[in-house]
């Protein structure tokens, strides 16, 4: 089922902290998880754009640092996107169930 696909994505990273969040059985564990993912993605994106600004303005940023920061932001964004896609797919599948 698509829920196993989700934890497959998380396991593929090897060192993720997602398991801690999803183990709780509070009211909406997934929405809390997803919100924190979005926040972290936007934080990484901020960092990447400030690093690239530093590079362009001639301050002491090395080009490889800017590249690495950009790549990290890209990966975080892709991950959040895939999680969202899977979640939406799971929702649609649930909705299409005939009882």
């Amino acid at each position, binding site marked *: 089922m*698509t829920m*196993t*696909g*989700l934890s*497959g*994505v998380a396991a*593929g*990273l*090897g*060192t*993720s*902290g*997602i398991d801690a969040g999803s183990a709780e059985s509070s009211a909406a564990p997934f929405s809390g998880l997803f919100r*924190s*993912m979005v926040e*972290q*993605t936007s934080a*990484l994106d901020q960092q990447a754009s400030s690093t690239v600004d530093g590079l362009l303005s001639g301050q002491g940023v*090395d080009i*490889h*640092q800017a590249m*690495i920061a950009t*790549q*990290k932001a890209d*990966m*975080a964004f*892709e*991950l*959040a996107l*895939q999680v969202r896609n*899977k979640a939406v797919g799971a929702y649609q599948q649930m909705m299409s169930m005939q009882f």
Partner: protein
Amino acid sequence: MQVTTAMSDALARYLDLTSEQMKLTAGNMANVDTPGYKTQGFDFEQEFAQQMNKEGGDSSVSTPQVQEVDGLVSRPDGNNVSMDREGMQLAKSQLQFRLGVELLKHEYSSVMSAIHAEAK
């Protein structure tokens, strides 16, 4: 959520140190004819080990300790820059940088393919 692995953090620091080494080498080569100039350098392996031990949440950029390199012969004008040593450092840093970049690319591409993996 963590998109980086321990390996990619280590490689990022490796690239940082290698580019520091490159800057010092360029400065040394530029000053090969300056009277009284002493070769500047740092111990790469030691600095890298320190950076590795330091991590665990601490991702600040720390600069290596730059000191004068000993064991070099001074010429009469006080300059002790050896072109051979600097040439070797130049080639080595270039290759190290290339190595770091290739390994990092590999790391990132495996994370990306994990993200895009289709669940069955």
